[in-house]
């Protein structure tokens, strides 16, 4: 039994939430189509394609064309979802997402699977660690990084039912703790308060929210009270929540399964320096490529596990006035 299960959390890959949402949404949205790029089962687009084979189209291993096809479907009035691994979507097809989708403001949703180091054994080529930076600088893009399968379900529903225009949803491969349930509120652009605290705020996204909850428990034992925000929407960013966190706790630690440069932490810092400067630290991948290994050992090796987060938090508190 691992630490997560000891905690009583059910483990499930967030990609399952993406697939389940697509299958459910298809029932009520006849205009919903999904375009895949040969990774149908792995991205969980298969949950949709098995139920609605007539509305699933494979682009083959050709992501640039896949994004273009999705754009064409959107131009024809459909809601088009394109799904593949994050490195191939946000990296390989970057200009297609920028110019064809965002510049034209088309109703295309990108399901970016295999985000983060926790992809595991496949190694660096398949571990997307740069998409948050790449996607959040695109005008008109909404960028969602949900914390677990349940939240990924809600993010996918919101992307399709609430947002007219480009959305990128980042989710992961490995089973991660399910820390939310059906009734947990989810609002695009509104950070979710996971836990109250007064000494610092940990702002996390994706599977790092659960890791931060464990970190906060360690800190609690040392008498440190950490507030936790689940920043599932990187763009548009919840400025109010960040300003409030800075004002109330006076220190901010960001935690993400992504390069420290340009990612969620940078997005938070942009708000903090402009509004209410407080000491900050960044937990993330330190300007290096990933490698093969089991998700948990990689999180430890790259300083993304709960113990590393707790250590970083203590280091940060020394700088707090």
């Amino acid at each position, binding site marked *: 039994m691992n630490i997560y299960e000891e905690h009583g959390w059910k483990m499930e890959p967030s990609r399952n939430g993406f697939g389940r949402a697509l299958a459910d949404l298809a029932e009520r949205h006849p*205009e919903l*189509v999904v*375009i895949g790029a040969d990774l149908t089962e792995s991205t969980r687009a298969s949950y949709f394609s098995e139920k609605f084979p*007539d*509305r699933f*189209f494979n*682009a*083959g291993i*050709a992501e*640039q*064309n896949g*994004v*273009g*096809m*999705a*754009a*064409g*479907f*959107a*131009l*024809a*009035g*459909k809601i*088009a979802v394109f799904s593949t691994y994050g490195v191939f979507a946000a990296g390989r097809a970057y*200009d*297609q997402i920028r*110019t*064809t989708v965002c*510049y*034209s*403001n*088309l109703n295309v949703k990108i399901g970016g699977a295999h985000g983060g180091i926790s992809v595991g054994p496949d190694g660096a080529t398949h571990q997307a660690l740069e998409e948050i930076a790449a996607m959040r600088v695109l005008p008109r893009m909404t960028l969602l990084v949900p914390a677990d399968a349940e939240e990924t379900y809600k993010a996918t529903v919101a992307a399709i039912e609430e947002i007219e225009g480009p959305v990128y949803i980042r989710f992961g491969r490995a089973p991660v703790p399910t820390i939310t349930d059906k009734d947990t509120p989810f609002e695009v652009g509104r950070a979710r308060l996971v836990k109250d605290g007064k000494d610092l705020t940990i702002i996390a996204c994706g599977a790092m929210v659960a890791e931060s909850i464990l970190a906060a428990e360690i800190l609690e034992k040392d008498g440190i009270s950490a507030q936790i925000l689940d920043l599932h929407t990187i763009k548009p960013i919840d400025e109010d929540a960040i300003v409030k966190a800075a004002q109330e706790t006076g220190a901010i630690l960001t935690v993400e399964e992504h390069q420290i440069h340009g990612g969620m932490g940078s997005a938070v810092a942009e708000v903090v320096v402009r509004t209410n400067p407080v000491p900050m630290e960044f937990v993330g991948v330190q300007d290096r490529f990933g490698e093969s290994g089991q998700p948990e050992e990689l999180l430890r090796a790259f300083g993304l596990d709960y113990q590393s987060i707790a250590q970083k938090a203590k280091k940060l508190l020394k700088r707090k006035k």
Partner: protein
Amino acid sequence: MLDEKTRERFSEIARRIRFDIIKMTYHAGSGHPGGSLSIADILTVLYFKYLRHKPENPNWEERDIVILSKGHACPALYAVLAEAGYYPREEMWTLRKFGSRLQGHPAKDKGLPGIEVSTGSLGQGLSIAVGAAMAFKYMDNSDRRVYAILGDGEMQEGQIWEAIMAAGHYHLDNLVAIVDNNNLQIDGFVPDVMNIHPLPDKFRSFNWEPIEADGHDLDAIDDAFAKALEIRGKPAALIFHTIKGRGVSYMENEAQWHGKAPNRELALRAVQDLGFPAEALDRDIV
């Protein structure tokens, strides 16, 4: 084959489009006249005979879609749209100016009627056309068609071949790719820079029907479109042999006129070449 009256009318329209291209780029001080002039005749036949559209209702739900994948040739597209009545002619002279709906490359978000999608980063338009054609054919059960206009140099982009593969795979007989084979790109002749030929063989092997024609012979263009619409079970590739800079003597077959506007003296010469009076160059310019 066109009847005599139509041929004459189309020839006049194409001549006006060429004049508008020169006038627009001259007053903009920049732009891409060469590859715009090469598609003037093709666009004339497409917009005034084959395209099912309603300029007064540009979002008409049954319309065919045109995607100018070689977005830099937008002066030609802007001219044909004005000619068809999509927007007032005088707006043409705002090309490339701050605040204009006529951006340096087509911009959907600026709202010029008739611009379906933003293009300009080469290689992307055919994929969009493929997606739209799939939506019409496989979801809407509609006979709406999609036309994508490609440059020959643009066919060096890998994404074009991904799209060609997909269109053949999905039997998109409601898709027509129009290749402006003017044989020139910025760095020189296409076969010297990076050869893309033989195009008909390549299209055929990807399950397309290639049709070659002279892109400046209005009857030949007409026949090519007519043939394309008869094809069932696969997409049609109209490979039009054209001359970059066609209609302006000093621009013809000169790579340097890919992305450069004429100065006043040369603009006046072009106007003369096209049979317009010199004063037409400045008419309605504020």
